[in-house]
């Protein structure tokens, strides 16, 4: 017998018992509207494909990773440097998570723009929201399993947010951490979530999601003016697929397959070029020379926490997620019928653009976080040479003090240093020496008061240096009342 005959026989033997070929062929051949076999409809299947890859690479990593607080970091280092191809599997898994989050968001935006959440596909949308949350949950727990300093302090941030809950904050923190501190049980809890709980949730809701897509049919291309009504939609859709429908396989599936191939190729290239994500330093809380940052999918939250007015923070941290998730769930009930086309739904388009822009800008700000002091700038960012040359002895002392008193952690010179406060390069054009003294000694406008920590001589030196901080063509600020006051004094 030839190999193909053997395969055929085995297949027939199995099908005689399983009886699955009928339903499978039926599912593959379910008719889809010709209009929706479009390149716009490929993101869901691509997300699914990346998820399957995540399962595979995650499975590989689990064969080496040690889910124990005292060994996890070492096993990651082993994966990166010693385990053959360990770095590549880690890179695929890490970048795969980024791809998956990105694709989920694009898929969701497309579904929302095309009105696919409307009747009768509300439940598909709800399952999709659960899948979005599960994907983000995988992203966060995955970041924790990369048990390095960022993971440790990321958990600290999570605990601090939970700790703001009124009355039971402390208990919730211990529930999340599995104990009083971030330690062994914390990692084990997040390992359980990442490897058992959330994947189980993902699989079941992907099943529901797909079942609903098959049962209800793929959303047709939205035409402006074609209104969704509960009474008539099903009949209209039925007419559409029977007169202008095509079987899903291969008519729509071919585009899905091409796009999936491209995405996987892009993922492989990204992983090969960019390499694994982290880990950075050992998760030793005693190493305090660390600057924790979340992965990009939570960078926007990190930024929001820096920029929200402090008095709104606790309220928004606790209610914000509930409201946001509630709104996502409510969308198909708020706008379950009516126009599907984004051309006739300006308000929806505006909301979508606004949400994406807000998150995009917050992520961009988070990449350089101007609100954070640069902890090493005072000792590591040299005073620009042009500010050293030609300065008087006192001004040079001021330049030293600008470094030594950690001013540069928040203020930049020559583009280097913190961005929390204004750059000092042109201070003298904005403030007179008296105003500089007041600002340094009393602080204000988010600057601590340095009065207790600077001697008068130190203040004099700093002011002397800052008074030179103006371009040659622009005179320093001066107090117009000074000469008059001096005359009064003389009298």
């Amino acid at each position, binding site marked *: 017998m030839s190999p193909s005959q053997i395969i055929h026989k085995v297949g027939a033997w199995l099908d005689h018992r399983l009886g699955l070929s009928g339903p499978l*062929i*039926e599912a593959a*051949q*379910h*008719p889809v509207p010709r209009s929706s076999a479009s390149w716009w409809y490929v993101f869901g299947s691509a997300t699914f494909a990346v998820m399957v890859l995540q399962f595979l690479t995650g499975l590989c990593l689990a064969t080496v990773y040690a889910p*124990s*607080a*005292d*060994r996890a970091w070492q096993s990651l280092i082993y994966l990166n440097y010693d385990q053959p191809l360990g770095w590549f599997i880690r890179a695929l898994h890490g970048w795969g998570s980024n791809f998956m989050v990105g694709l989920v968001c694009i898929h969701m935006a497309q579904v929302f723009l095309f009105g696919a959440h409307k009747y009768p596909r509300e439940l598909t949308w709800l399952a999709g929201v659960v899948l979005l949350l599960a994907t983000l949950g995988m992203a966060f727990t995955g970041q924790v399993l990369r048990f390095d300093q960022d993971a440790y*302090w990321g958990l*600290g*941030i999570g*605990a*601090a*947010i*939970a*700790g*703001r809950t009124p009355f*039971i*904050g*402390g208990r*919730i*923190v*211990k*529930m999340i951490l599995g*104990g*009083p*501190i971030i*330690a*062994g049980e*914390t990692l084990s809890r997040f390992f359980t979530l990442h490897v058992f709980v959330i994947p189980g949730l993902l699989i079941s809701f992907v099943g529901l999601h797909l079942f609903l897509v098959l*049962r209800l*049919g793929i959303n047709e291309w939205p035409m402006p003016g074609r209104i969704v009504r509960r009474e008539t939609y*099903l*009949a209209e859709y039925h007419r559409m697929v029977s007169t202008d429908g*095509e*079987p899903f396989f291969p008519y729509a599936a071919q585009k899905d397959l091409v796009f999936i191939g491209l995405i996987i190729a892009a993922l492989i290239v990204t992983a090969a070029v960019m390499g694994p994500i982290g880990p950075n330093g*050992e*998760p*030793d*809380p*005693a190493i*305090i*020379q*660390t*600057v*924790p940052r979340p992965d990009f999918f939570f960078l926007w939250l990190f930024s929001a*926490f*820096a920029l929200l007015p*402090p008095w709104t923070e*606790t309220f928004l941290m606790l209610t914000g997620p509930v409201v946001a998730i509630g709104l996502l769930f409510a969308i198909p009930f708020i706008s379950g019928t009516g126009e599907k086309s984004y051309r006739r739904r300006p308000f929806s388009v505006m909301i979508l653009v606004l949400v994406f822009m807000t998150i995009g800008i917050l992520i961009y700000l988070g990449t350089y976080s101007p609100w*954070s*002091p640069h*902890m090493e700038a*005072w000792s590591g960012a040299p005073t620009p040479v042009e500010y050293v040359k030609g300065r008087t002895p006192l001004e040079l002392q001021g330049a030293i003090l600008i470094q030594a*008193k*950690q001013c540069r*952690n928040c203020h930049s010179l020559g583009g280097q240093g913190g961005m929390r406060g204004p750059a000092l390069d042109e201070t003298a054009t904005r403030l007179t020496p008296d105003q500089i003294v007041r600002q340094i000694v009393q602080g204000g406008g*988010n600057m*601590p008061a340095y009065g207790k920590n600077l001697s008068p001589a130190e203040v004099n030196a700093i002011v002397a240096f800052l008074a030179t901080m103006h371009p040659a063509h622009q005179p320093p600020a001066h107090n117009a009342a000074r000469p008059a006051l001096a005359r009064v004094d003389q009298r």
Partner: protein
Amino acid sequence: MFQHPAARAIHDERMNMSETASPSRNPAAPPAQPTSRRVFLLRLGILLNAIAAAIFAVPVLGYLASPMRKFAWLSWISLGPLEHFPEHQTRLATYRNPYTKPWDGMTANIPCWVRREAGDTFMVFAINCTHLGCPVRWFQESGLFMCPCHGGVFYSDGKRASGPPPRGLYQYRHKVENGRLWIKAGELPTLGEPLA
């Protein structure tokens, strides 16, 4: 284009669905004899399973939620002899968390900032910023604690200086005994349970 005839037929049937399912599709028709043995057995089965599930759930949930129990996490531990802490200075001290397990590794080595004003006057600050828990770093030259995450700044006595933190640094209860500094430690401080 080729289409499996069965698929089309089944699909057509599906698309007849409407909001109210037709009676023929609803097999759970009302029983003819409500008191029959079959119904009784079914109800008994459901009841037994509900009781079993409840009995099963108690230990499982109790197991998972055990960290939520009120528990005396805090206990007194020594940070070392007083000579380790020069007067008018702030130093980093590290202690092994009193509640720990062998597989905690380095994560149970908790640091804190010890400020010795003069003599036996101390202040012991938690490492965690009161904003979102990031590790604050002490800068002795400017006499400030700075947080690398969102720019919280605190004065040498732990009071909030600037940035988003809602309060000053968390402080440990402490005492001086037998020439050693002791603090009451054991849990991650948060706004909900700020150590003292």
